[in-house]
């Protein structure tokens, strides 16, 4: 059975950094059957085990760069060069762990929503709130395309 996993990451107490979690909430509400959804503060190695069970992994993040409110999507490939372990790891490293630890090669995408304010607080900026429906639509379209269009 085809299975998509959405990993929404960010800090909901740092303004628009919580965008991914809010998009995930909307997704759960509007399209609960679409994907399994995880909300985490940051990417950690153990997420690789969960991702290795999926065929499609969509990393959902807020971005400080870019035009506020813009929704961007790009494919992510497993990292091939040796990784460095800091306090967080990148989507490409999660896919690399999937491959090297669990012999799994899920297709990966990074969907970013550009935010505006990343200061302390649990509220999103108006422009970030306005981007949520577009992000949900982009996620639905991506999943549809990856699973069914071909």
């Amino acid at each position, binding site marked *: 059975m085809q299975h998509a996993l959405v990993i929404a990451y960010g800090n909901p107490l740092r303004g628009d950094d919580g965008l991914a979690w809010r998009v995930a909430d909307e997704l759960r509400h509007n399209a609960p059957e679409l994907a399994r959804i995880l909300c985490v503060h940051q990417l950690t*190695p153990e997420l690789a085990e969960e991702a290795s069970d999926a065929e499609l992994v969509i990393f959902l993040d807020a971005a400080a760069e870019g035009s506020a409110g813009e929704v961007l999507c790009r494919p992510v490939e497993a990292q091939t060069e040796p990784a460095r372990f800091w306090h967080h790891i990148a989507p490409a490293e999660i896919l690399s762990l999937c491959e090297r630890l669990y012999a799994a090669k899920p297709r990966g995408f990074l969907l970013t929503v550009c935010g505006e304010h990343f200061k302390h607080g649990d509220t999103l900026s108006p422009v970030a709130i306005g981007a949520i429906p577009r992000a949900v639509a982009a996620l639905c379209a991506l999943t549809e395309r990856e699973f069914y269009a071909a």
Partner: protein
Amino acid sequence: MAATKTITIDPVTRIEGHSKITLHLDETGRVTDARFHVTQFRGFEKFCEGRPFAEMPSLMARICGICPVSHLIASAKACDELLAVRIPPTAEKLRRIIGIAQVVQSHALSLFHLSSPDLLLGMDADPATRNIFGVLEAEPQLARDGIALRKFGQQIIERLGGKRIHPGWVVPGGVNNPLSQQDRDAILAAIPDALAIALRSLAWFKGVAEKFADEAESFGSFPSLFMGIVNDDGNLAFYDGKLRFVDGDGETVADGLDGADYAEFLGEKVEPWSYLKSAYYTPKGYPGGIYRVGPLARLNVAQNCGTPLADEELRVFRMLHGRTPASSFHYHHARLIEILHCVERMEELLNDSEILSTHVRAEAKPNALEGVGIAEAPRGTLLHHYKIDEQGLIIWANLIIATGQNNLAMNRSVLQVAQRYVRGEHITHGMLNRVEAVIRAYDPCLSCSTHAAGQMALQVQLLGPDGAVLDEAVR
């Protein structure tokens, strides 16, 4: 005046939080002094003032992303004292389960993610590969086991607390929701695999530890006091019990101490070169009252673990290292024994006939103006002490965190390792990594002091007496 040099390791890597180490060398290149500086600042005790006491558990959980559950538990226990209630027995058992689930995931993080690169690949291995990714290349099963154990603990926290990080489920008077049969059965189903991994990891560790005999002799190997909570049988306890101090010979120095009386036997000293206070046992003064807490200390103060597999491993541990091992290198081994014990204990608790009871919270208004909560966090004994006014608002708070209680020992350990391995004017990665590795053995959680952001970089400079850079390493 003799010419001196200073080596600075800033920051220390693969630990929780930010710090630096300075090594002071004399004119012959010998290390004469060493200091472990915590460069973060914490403010939780101050900015909680004025908040309603009922907010404290979830507020205090924000202190740390690794051990939020320990802060939840110690804070909620302090609030129980403010309510002056006995929480329902099932609530206490559920708190115990989430507490030891956190011990499992936190110990797994420390051993597998942070320290196993040194142990598997060697202290002198290329720093570019001496990390968890290097471990997965060299020993994929070990990396999978580390990930699986951490996931095991985190998923239990999520099932009970609703989320993996900063759950708010532990509240004054008990817990927010009972355990469902579905969640109980799911956790029980994962126990056999977790036990197998814990045993496999112990076997692996005992094998590799033989290669580190030299490090074991100098990684904080000195007599000190050890402190930890023991239960009524004198065995290992994480949630409740009395404090016990033993000395380096295993002799009991103090026993049956109530955590609420901590001010009578624990002092804290502020040093100008660190934001981390140094706790000490006041009857022996400062710094003579140096003591250690955490996995090694807990095993040293306890009679037994109290579960069969862990007790067998404890017997082997003591056969290998003596009744009261002095070297902080053995924190790693102790950590694995505790993981095994916690999984065993979890199975016992989940099979308790009352565990699915829905009576999980005692309701009350404040009945006392002061409360102390104490519990064993992964890194050692944790104390939360609050005072409130008649409206239930916090007017004063004091937290004594494990890492501060190990501060004197960490500083002494850094000096011992540096004097053993660092020589002359040329720095090698292996030398410096050993200095960092002894800190990792304690698994300090500096994030319990404050929150920090930014990428970990490492720049080490060896300065001559005139301040000239004699050698430099950057990564």
